[in-house]
């Protein structure tokens, strides 16, 4: 059974590109476009890994992680952050985040990060 990845990002183009790339690498991919939707999807679909954008409407990445950590199941899911270079310091202040990739990124880099945390 292939691993399930949830990607949360408000940029539709990026989501569809990443989805295609990851599916070509045998991952199952589900998506959400803001933090609120993301939390719903985590509850219903129980992904093995979350790829998370920081800047999103309705609920941003920081808030999403805080909310996710309140749930004992959600806490365990590894998170990779998609970020722009100058938000790096804020990201390091976050707890519960495993790794990060800086936008714009090369698909191979993201895949490499993913393989560190799930099969």
């Amino acid at each position, binding site marked *: 059974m292939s691993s399930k990845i949830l990607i949360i990002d408000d940029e539709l183009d990026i989501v569809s590109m990443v989805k295609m790339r990851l599916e*070509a690498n045998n991952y199952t991919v589900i998506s959400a476009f803001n933090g609120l939707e993301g939390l719903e999807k985590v509850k219903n679909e129980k992904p093995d890994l979350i790829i998370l954008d920081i800047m999103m409407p309705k609920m941003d990445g920081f808030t999403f992680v805080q909310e996710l950590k309140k749930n004992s199941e959600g806490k365990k899911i590894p998170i990779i952050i998609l970020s722009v270079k100058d938000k790096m310091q804020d990201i*390091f202040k976050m707890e519960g985040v495993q790794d990060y990739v800086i936008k714009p990124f090369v698909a191979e880099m993201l895949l490499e990060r993913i393989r560190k945390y799930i099969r």
Partner: protein
Amino acid sequence: METPQTTPNSQIGYLKKENEQLKKEIELLKESSTDQQVSIEEKNQWIKTLYNELEKKNKELEKLDKLKSDFVASVSHGLRTPLAVTLEGLSIVLDSIPGPINEKQKNILLTARQNLEQLNQVIGDLLDISQIEAGQLDLRLGFVNVIKLFQNFINSYQPIAISKDIKLSIQISQDSLYLYIDRDKIIKVIKNLLDNALKFTKKGGSIHVAMHMRKNDVLFTFTDTGIGIAKEDMPRLFNKFQQLARLEGVGLQGSGLGLTISKAVIELHGGEIWAESQLGKGTSFYFTLPTYDTVKATFENQFDSILKGALFIGKPVSFILLYLNSFGSQPTGNDETIVMHTMNTMISILNNIASHPEDKVFIYNMNSIYVILPETNKMDSMRLIGRIKDAIKRRKFVFEKKEIKTDFKYGLAVFPLDANDRAGLIKVAQENITRRKDILLVDDDNQIIQYFEGMLTKMGFGVRSAYDGEQCLKLVEQHPPDLIILDIIMPQMNGFEVYGRLQRNPKTTYIPVVMLTEHDVDLKDAELIGLDVSSVMHKQDGFDKLLGIVKSFL
């Protein structure tokens, strides 16, 4: 004095002039005290006042710098993201992921991708140059095996060289040479010089790369038998947007910024770059990079002047020593590569956590990282260590698909509290890593004391005990422990009161405290006094949990 105008550059000019002015005033004052009879005390006061003015101006300069970097960042994002999305889309189609494509489609898309990659290059160069001019280019330094770097380059350029019938050769005298440099930026420089050499050398020509070890630096040379550069063009060689004599068939590619950027990068590293050429015969490009020992000496000087400055203005400086414990002190072969990789990863994490522009992070020898935090006291640096531990706890260190176990030890020394010079600070920090940690147990229940004391001593900690608040404070006064385990319910002075007193005393406020409780309701009270709930523990939770919390603090 003139009022500042509103454009950022003239504001900077104005502030810089003010800085110069203030510096001159300080100089004048220093001179005049030999002529006049003003007391040393008054002079010092005046100098301190001027220094504070300088501080304020510096802060304003910092703000303007941030405005500039925000501008570069947002332009960068707006240009790069659509380009990245387009490139990725093309790659996905070329990889036949949404379906197969025919030969004609493939060729068109390949050309499109090639051009987009060129566009990416040019945009990258323009962004680099605007960062450089804004004084915003930061180096991400780490250990790089430049021999391997060059070998990889030559190998990857051989196919192109062969296809152009150009002989590409390299002369190196050793297997590995580690320099302390920004890998990605130096790669850009090498690529720039090789691309130029290939562009301007005709069929049948040759390009030779060599490396010479010198006393304080390493000299790299790129010599080609190409069309050369005219004497009149040499002075402008590294200027912006210079694109010289075209070779037949070579279109006007690139941004004309390659050499300008290369020069800025090399000079930021403390090296030099120059060229020699003869029209029609060939060109040689040279650049130098300092040896690790040279960079280390520079760092030590910086360390010393930071301490000197701190002494003068009366602010503390924290020194954190990170020691990588997982490998021996002289790792060799593959282990050496893994250690380098681990240290480089650690540095990039630290650069994001110790992120104040004045903070300095430096790999000192194979297994230590030195972090200098000006104007930071013991409590704040202990918190920072907590954040570093946290960041690497969750993060996986992976090298060549294998996970690496990292075991870092942390030593802290604060100037002038713990020592008053560089050597002293390093010594204290090292001692803090190796010495036995001392825990103070405070509980009115003798059984609890016996139980935990026995377990903690077995784990290698030194343990003292107190049965009430008074005794606790007395023992802390005698000799501050590294950690206090404090019962909440005690006669006369309860745990919260003891905690409050410890917090209010600047000599003990940094000591981590773990509170022991038997009731849930105490958690709420703990929050009220600002205690981190992770350091409150139920007695029933058992020793393992306590040990976990203790280890996270020590």
